């Protein structure tokens, strides 16, 4: 036990140090790389907290997909940071802000330490209702059954974010594909990786979604892995990002929240409550909804990383 404790303390220091590096490093690119490492370390922390579902999500989305997004941005902004540097805060205001932040952290730490070791919990209630859902993983039950309303709306948040990102395109590119058009042949190494990894990754993604009903995993984590596979294939230039006006793309984007919403209304008709499941029919309904959520996540995350459309729609059509 003491070895584990030592490891915990070491992990805590490491997380803190890498986070500090992310905040204080001079170069934006270096800080971003630090952030990716930080995300991976955090998933270890989540495992130590016995929250494997969260650890998977943190590794896939918090560190992985967010890392790709931020590193891409940092690479493009590399030249832009020197000028802004001059305006960074100095002297008293900086000290004041630092003091404020330390105060917030200390107050928070104090309150966290005051929490009793066995605090209030919804775990018994979550377990009591678990048989009604036909699921074995209580986290999935919370996400898709007890608090289904949250999850459906959060899928709508993803869709709105995609609309927001796309809306930043120049008018002439509207409907076109995101990402630069490149005539180069695919990078052979990356193409090899994509060809080997993608089929495997797709299997793993679907597996993680499928076992999520009973074990750690689920629609978010599986969808994020599928998203990563699509991103690798696009990065290797084996395929291009689709046109943002493509109907199939939009259908895939809204399918998750839309099917969830329709199922929610169906619950009002067949089970007497919005987002309720008819008794005995819960598990198939949940897996059905989750399958569309996986699809939407797998499409929305790469689209959010790819950014606004950057190519004229007509040029694409002639392809």
């Amino acid at each position, binding site marked *: 036990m003491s070895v584990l404790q030592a490891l915990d303390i070491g992990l805590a220091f490491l997380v803190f140090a890498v986070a500090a590096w992310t905040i204080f490093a001079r170069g934006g690119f270096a800080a971003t790389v630090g952030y990716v490492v930080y995300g991976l370390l955090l998933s270890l922390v989540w495992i130590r907290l016995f929250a494997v579902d969260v650890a998977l999500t943190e590794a896939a989305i918090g560190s992985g997909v967010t890392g790709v997004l931020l590193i891409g941005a940092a690479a493009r902004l590399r030249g832009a940071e020197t000028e802004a540097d001059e305006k960074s805060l100095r002297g008293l205001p900086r000290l004041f802000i630092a003091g404020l932040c330390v105060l917030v952290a200390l107050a928070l730490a104090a309150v966290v330490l005051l929490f009793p070791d066995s605090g209030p919990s919804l775990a018994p209630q979550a377990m009591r209702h678990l048989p009604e859902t036909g699921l074995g993983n209580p986290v999935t039950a919370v996400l898709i059954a007890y608090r289904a309303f949250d999850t459906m709306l959060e899928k709508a948040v993803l869709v709105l974010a995609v609309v927001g990102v796309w809306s930043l395109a120049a008018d002439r590119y509207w409907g076109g594909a995101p990402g630069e058009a490149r005539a180069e042949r695919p*990078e052979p*190494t*990356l193409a*090899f*990786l994509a060809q*080997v*990894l993608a089929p*495997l990754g797709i299997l793993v993604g679907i597996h993680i979604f499928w076992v999520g009903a009973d074990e750690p995993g689920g629609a978010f984590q599986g969808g994020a892995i599928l998203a990563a596979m699509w991103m690798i294939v696009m990065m290797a230039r084996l395929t291009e990002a689709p046109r943002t006006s493509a109907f199939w793309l939009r259908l895939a984007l809204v399918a998750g929240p839309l099917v969830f919403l329709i199922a929610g209304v169906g619950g009002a008709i067949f089970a007497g409550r919005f987002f309720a499941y008819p008794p005995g029919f819960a598990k198939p309904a949940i897996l059905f909804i989750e399958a569309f959520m996986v699809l939407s996540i797998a499409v929305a995350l790469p689209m959010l990383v790819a950014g606004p459309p950057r190519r004229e729609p007509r040029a694409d059509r002639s392809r």
Partner: protein
Amino acid sequence: MSLVDLFSIVAIGAGVFFFLAGTVGLLRFPDGLSRLHALTKADNLGLGLIVLGLLPRAESPLAAFKLVAIWALVQLAGATTAQLVGRAVRRKGTAA
């Protein structure tokens, strides 16, 4: 302590040693390519030994298979990254 435990300890210990050596190489070697060399060699061996040490402790054949799969995936990713980094270093010239 059984023979299996001893095997695990030796293999994982050796794996950790290789990781450590690789990290030292990454920090101490003079140029990009030799850093890369140190890192990839040590990581492949290090992770391989750790997986080897863990294999006898796997709960089921499926879990053992997953361990080997992790090692293979890391190999694949490592090899690709090394290629890409190596090319970037060469393109930049000796400056790196």
